[in-house]
């Protein structure tokens, strides 16, 4: 079969191979990993007609530059407001285009957004672990961190001219300044006044932001009494509050257990929009019930389905699993 090979000329930090994620191993301490913005990832894959287990390159504001040194392949780019170019000529930051031997594909940050995706019409060659090629940043089992000088191989690479097009930026892919949260499971460690501040005041994303999570700055959220909770498993989106009182929102590479109280958990429907905020962006939180949050997840899934239908691409299961 044909292949395409890229030379990684530049890769900012946190440029990794990701697929949907590695599910079913939290009980062994293995976090899901997978894309920070799951909807943008799903759109890039669906626009190419890729299978559900396809991998993509995720990068952040450090960007990436890939020189095609062999073959040709169709590429989909989606996620955030990035600038995407082939040989310096802009291609849609959200779009499907082809690249051939000798050309250089670059992704640079634009005015907004923290994470973007490059999916390929073919199969990214990267080690799988526990059935997934998502990069587990902590352990280096599975996946791949891109570094300058590496070769990136796309197996069974194809040109799919029928797929080439611009993609409309869905309104649901914008960053979210107001994020819905479900209070708990350990809100009992906080005074009512502290909960009120969480839900009424503005927080700022600090520059301590990576795939594991982001530390917020704003009013301190003090823990009441002695902290005597045994470590518990925690889901992605947990808002954990350590002793310093700054909430930390745990994201795709979150640790699987935590011994600090989780004051709230982000609604799954708002996690992509939260991830697309940048350091120094501001955010507020609004409490909803688990049922309301689940209902918003179904609404968001419906909107994505409609978006993909309008594109004329096959419906893809985009949710968590």
């Amino acid at each position, binding site marked *: 079969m044909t292949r395409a090979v890229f030379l990684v000329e530049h890769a900012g930090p946190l440029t990794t191979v990701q697929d949907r994620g590695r*599910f*079913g*191993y*939290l*009980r*062994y*301490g*293995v976090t899901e990993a997978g894309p920070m913005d799951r909807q943008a990832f799903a759109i890039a894959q669906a626009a190419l007609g890729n299978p559900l287990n396809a991998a993509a390159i995720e990068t952040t504001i450090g960007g990436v530059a890939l020189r095609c040194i062999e073959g040709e392949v169709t590429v989909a780019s989606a996620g955030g407001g990035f600038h995407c170019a082939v040989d310096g000529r802009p291609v849609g930051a959200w779009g499907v285009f082809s690249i051939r031997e000798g050309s250089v594909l670059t992704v640079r940050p634009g005015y907004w957004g923290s994470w973007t995706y490059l999916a390929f019409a073919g199969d990214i060659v990267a080690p799988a*672990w*526990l059935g997934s090629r998502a990069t*587990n940043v*902590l*352990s*280096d*089992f*599975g996946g791949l961190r891109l570094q300058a000088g590496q070769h990136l191989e796309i197996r069974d690479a194809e040109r799919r001219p029928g797929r080439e097009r611009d993609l409309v930026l869905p309104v649901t892919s914008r960053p979210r300044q107001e994020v819905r949260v*479900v209070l*708990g*499971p*350990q809100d009992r460690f906080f005074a009512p006044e502290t909960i009120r501040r969480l839900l009424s005041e503005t927080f700022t994303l600090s520059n301590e932001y990576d795939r594991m999570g982001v530390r917020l700055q704003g009013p301190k959220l003090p823990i009441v009494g002695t902290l*005597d*909770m*045994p*470590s*518990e*498993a*925690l*889901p*992605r*989106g*947990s808002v954990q509050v350590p002793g310093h009182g700054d909430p930390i929102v745990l994201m795709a590479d979150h*640790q*699987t*257990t935590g011994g600090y109280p*989780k004051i709230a*958990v*982000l*609604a*799954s*429907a708002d996690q992509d929009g939260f991830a697309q905020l940048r350091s120094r962006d501001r955010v507020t939180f609004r409490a909803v*019930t*688990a*049922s309301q*949050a*689940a209902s*918003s*997840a*179904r609404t968001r*899934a419906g909107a994505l389905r409609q978006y993909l239908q309008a594109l004329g691409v096959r419906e893809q299961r985009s*949710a*968590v*699993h």
Partner: protein
Amino acid sequence: MPAGPFPRLRAAGDQGLLVEFGDSVDVAVSERVLAFDAALRARPFHGFTESTPSYAAVLVGYDPLEVTPSAVRAHVEALLAEPHPPLAAAALHELPVCYEQPFAPDLADVAQRCGMSEEAVIAAHLSGEYRVFMFGFAPGYGYLGGVPEAIRVPRKPNPVRARPPGSLAIAGPMCLVTTVTAPTGWWVIGRSPARIVDVDRERQFLFEVGDRIRFRRIRRDEFDAFGSVP
């Protein structure tokens, strides 16, 4: 189920329900955690994703596109109301460990803090039988409870520079064998050549939550030879 506040159900977002069985680290609570974990996995609901046991709670994961939070809660409550079948006997594993330098950078400190000789610390550690309470933090990080009273030392106030995988570390009643290079505030008193996570092995994790662990002392030459034995 026992009277009192437990089991207690708490929403953990719209993809998780936390079922708490206590607020302490002890074997009786852990047994209830594992019994529920087993019952849930034997009888999952539509939309169930995974069950994650920890010291005193189980995180029940679900897909909000497939099942509502209230249906998850109803299923969990029904399971809790039933008697759980007894758990299968826990497997016993023996992990080799070398307590020699340079594998034991904190052994002298631990001995001093406990007012014991280094040999007595090693003997005390070897005398324990440990229980895998949970995995957490990183792949294969099993929190093993059962460090004998005499060598319980609180964790250091701040994590120390990266320690290599295989480090045997103790803090309070817990010990663990690390699997990745990471800073730790625990006291490193030895190193095990056992591969707790082995990507080339069919069974990729050496033990399960609830299993029992004993340690066996090996010399440096046995440690070095360990990897070469097929």
